[in-house]
């Protein structure tokens, strides 16, 4: 409860209020309060509490008084920004998002730009001087509402305008998006509440022993506009380079842009240096905030920000996406900076990331002069050399071969498991061959065109699935050696100390079970009771490691130890 009001169902997260309970306001609103208390400027917001959610389910309706409090909450935002919700001049739009104390699947996504209708669109167009932008905001809001509140499952993102989105929604669910912003808001809040008891959220809680009646909060926050004038813009900032992990701010700024513009790729943003030139004060404030969030978040952050009339607003800060190389670098750096201990650093790097780094590549220059036999779409990266076969049965009989098919289906999976690489004539990045190869971490090139099976069968080829090419003969490859990379070496030492199982290149403890010698099928081979050591490619995959741990195995023999150790630690963490 805040000093500002005597709200029964709302909390307004002000900087000077005491820490709100996560149970009451949910994790997202809590982090909003956290940003505010760090002195960072975030757009004004309020939260409908989980208590209101519980009351909603008691009455099967929004609890008494909530409607009035929503009005009061919005008025509070209007006062701060000098805008009007549903107004015909300087309209206020808001985002509506769910937030429970424990993050749960099945809960509703964020609705952006709520409060829009035909009149508001007109007002936005007049204010921004950009009717196209206003139309885009309206179209996007209609899609969000149709999908999240009305439950439309049609693809609405690619439709050209609001009218088309409305038509698709009407066709799919037979309902319309209300024009009244207040009705939109009440319906959105109720939809968030309901989503906490969706069939899937319930199933999840039951499966993981989370209390059944755990409700959700609803955060309602003002949208800010980076496209108002020349003194406005929007951007993203990574506190560390997401490609190589170096500790340097990295980002983009789009003058006169809105948040989605940067992500959509419709326009080319400028480097952050542009902001430094145009608005040195804002730039300095942004870098200070980034530093603070990196330290507070104890991880590289991906920060979304908007500048509205020369004023910086932080919209979101979350752990940044990163390449495998960057993940390793950042985890080790954070230990050196004294932010993480080694055990925690291990949770920041996944087995998949290390496997990616250890993937062999065609040696520099090796492809020059090699005969290119086929070319297609890279579906699962990596390099492999082998004899080409054209049936799954032949692939099973010759493990390590290259399987080439017109296309693949579940009938071919046992052959795909045995093959070192998969090539197809038909299909794209979403084809069966692509999906299954990625799941198996098998190099795969798809869509090489008719005749590929006939051209390749019987030859020895090298598949460079990273580049989507198939060469004649055996090409030299090079790979990162985990023992020669200082960062990987340190992670391996830490992982050894934390792992419930030993991973070694050799040194089996009897009795040994060889997964490669077992039947190659779609199932994991059953590990005989009392087995102390397992070997074989299948036990280097995450599900293989899991099976080995569940069978009480002590040693996994593998050429690459770190991915196995990380998978084992992750499994151990999940089950204990």
């Amino acid at each position, binding site marked *: 409860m805040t000093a500002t009001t005597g709200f029964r169902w709302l909390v307004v997260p002000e900087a000077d209020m005491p820490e709100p309970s996560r149970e009451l306001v949910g994790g997202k609103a809590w982090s909003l309060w956290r940003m505010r208390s760090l002195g960072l400027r975030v757009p004004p917001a309020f939260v409908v509490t989980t208590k209101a959610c519980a009351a909603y389910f008691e009455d099967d309706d929004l609890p008494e008084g909530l409607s009035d409090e929503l009005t009061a909450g919005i008025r509070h935002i209007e006062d701060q920004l000098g805008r009007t919700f549903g107004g015909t001049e300087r309209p206020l739009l808001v985002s509506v998002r769910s937030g429970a104390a424990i993050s749960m*699947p099945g809960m509703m996504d964020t609705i952006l730009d709520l409060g829009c209708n035909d009149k508001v669109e007109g007002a936005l167009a007049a204010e921004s001087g950009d009717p196209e932008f206003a139309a885009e905001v309206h179209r996007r809001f209609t899609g969000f509402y149709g999908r999240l509140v009305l439950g439309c499952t049609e693809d609405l993102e690619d439709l050209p305008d609001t009218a088309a989105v409305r038509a698709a929604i009407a066709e799919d669910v037979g309902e319309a998006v209300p024009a009244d912003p207040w009705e939109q808001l009440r319906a959105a809040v109720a939809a968030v509440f309901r989503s906490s008891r969706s069939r899937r959220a319930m199933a999840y809680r039951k499966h993981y022993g989370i209390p059944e009646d755990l409700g959700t909060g609803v955060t309602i926050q003002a949208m800010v506009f980076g496209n108002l004038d020349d003194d406005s813009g929007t951007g993203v900032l990574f506190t560390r380079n997401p490609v190589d992990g170096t500790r340097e701010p990295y980002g983009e700024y789009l003058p006169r842009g809105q948040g989605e513009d940067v992500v959509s790729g419709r326009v080319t943003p400028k480097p952050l240096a542009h902001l430094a030139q145009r608005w040195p004060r804002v730039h300095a404030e942004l870098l200070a905030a980034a530093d603070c969030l990196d330290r507070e978040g104890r991880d590289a952050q991906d920060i979304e920000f908007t500048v509205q009339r020369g004023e910086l607003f932080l919209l979101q800060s979350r752990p940044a996406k*990163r390449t495998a190389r960057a993940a390793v670098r950042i985890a080790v750096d954070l230990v050196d900076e004294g932010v993480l201990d080694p055990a925690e650093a291990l949770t920041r790097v*996944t087995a998949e990331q290390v496997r990616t780094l250890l993937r062999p590549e065609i040696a520099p220059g090796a492809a020059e002069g090699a005969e290119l036999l086929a070319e297609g779409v890279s579906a699962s990266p990596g390099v492999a050399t082998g004899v080409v076969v054209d049936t799954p049965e032949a692939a099973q009989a010759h493990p390590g071969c290259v399987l080439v098919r017109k296309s693949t289906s579940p009938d071919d999976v046992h052959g795909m498991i045995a093959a070192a690489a998969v090539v197809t004539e038909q299909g794209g*990045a979403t084809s069966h061959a692509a*999906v*299954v190869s990625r799941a198996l971490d098998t190099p795969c090139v798809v869509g090489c065109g008719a005749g590929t099976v006939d051209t390749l069968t019987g030859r020895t080829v090298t598949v460079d699935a990273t580049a989507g090419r198939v060469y004649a003969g055996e090409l030299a490859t090079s790979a990162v050696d985990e023992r020669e990379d200082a960062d990987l070496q340190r992670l391996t030492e830490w992982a050894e100390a934390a792992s419930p199982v030993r991973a070694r290149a050799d040194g089996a403890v009897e009795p040994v079970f060889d997964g490669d010698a077992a039947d190659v099928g*779609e199932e994991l081979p059953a590990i005989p009771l009392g087995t102390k050591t397992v070997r074989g490619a299948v036990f280097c995959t995450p*599900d293989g490691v899991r099976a080995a741990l569940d069978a009480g195995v002590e040693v996994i023999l593998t050429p690459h130890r770190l991915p196995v150790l990380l998978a084992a630690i992750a499994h151990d963490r999940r089950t204990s």
Partner: protein
Amino acid sequence: MLDPYELTVHSLTLRQLGTAEQLADITGQDVAEVEAGLEKAVAAGLVMAARGSYLITPAGREHLDGIYPRAFEGLRADPQVAAAMEAFETGVNKQVLALTTDWQTIEVDGARVTNDHGDADYDATIIDKLGRVQEKTAKVLRPLSDADPLVDRFLDRIGTALTRAEGGETDYVSGVRVDSVHTVWFQMHEHILRLTGRERPE
């Protein structure tokens, strides 16, 4: 409709190599019933036994091809079923394949790379979309599930896989060696293709 024996042989076209327990899990039959059916099918040369697992033989496939048109005559003549299949192929099936790709790969700085599952929000979004598509699929396939109870069973198994994936067992989205969303989805797809006598589009 298929009789219990035919259903057992049919289940081997959905899962290439399976134990009696695994096949019973697909069809919902008694394990004892499946075992009896498999024994009979092995004797008839329709099925091969291999170390506790079973495989269908070319003769077994031919046998089924002779049975389907009769067993599913009514279903195949139903225009609502045909419309449902069309909607499935052009709609939710494409969505599931695209979402599986989104699950496996992620965009970092403009390039698509393997999803290392380090971004929980991203993963949650994909699983959430898969969940919505699964719910929609139940509606799309209603004419088929009205005629054949196995269709609902597949959708339940996809839901189970989603729940496990949501709990952090990431290979339950597209893993090949477990009953992942993708694995069960492909089984279901194969099943309904056989019901309706259609070819898998590529």
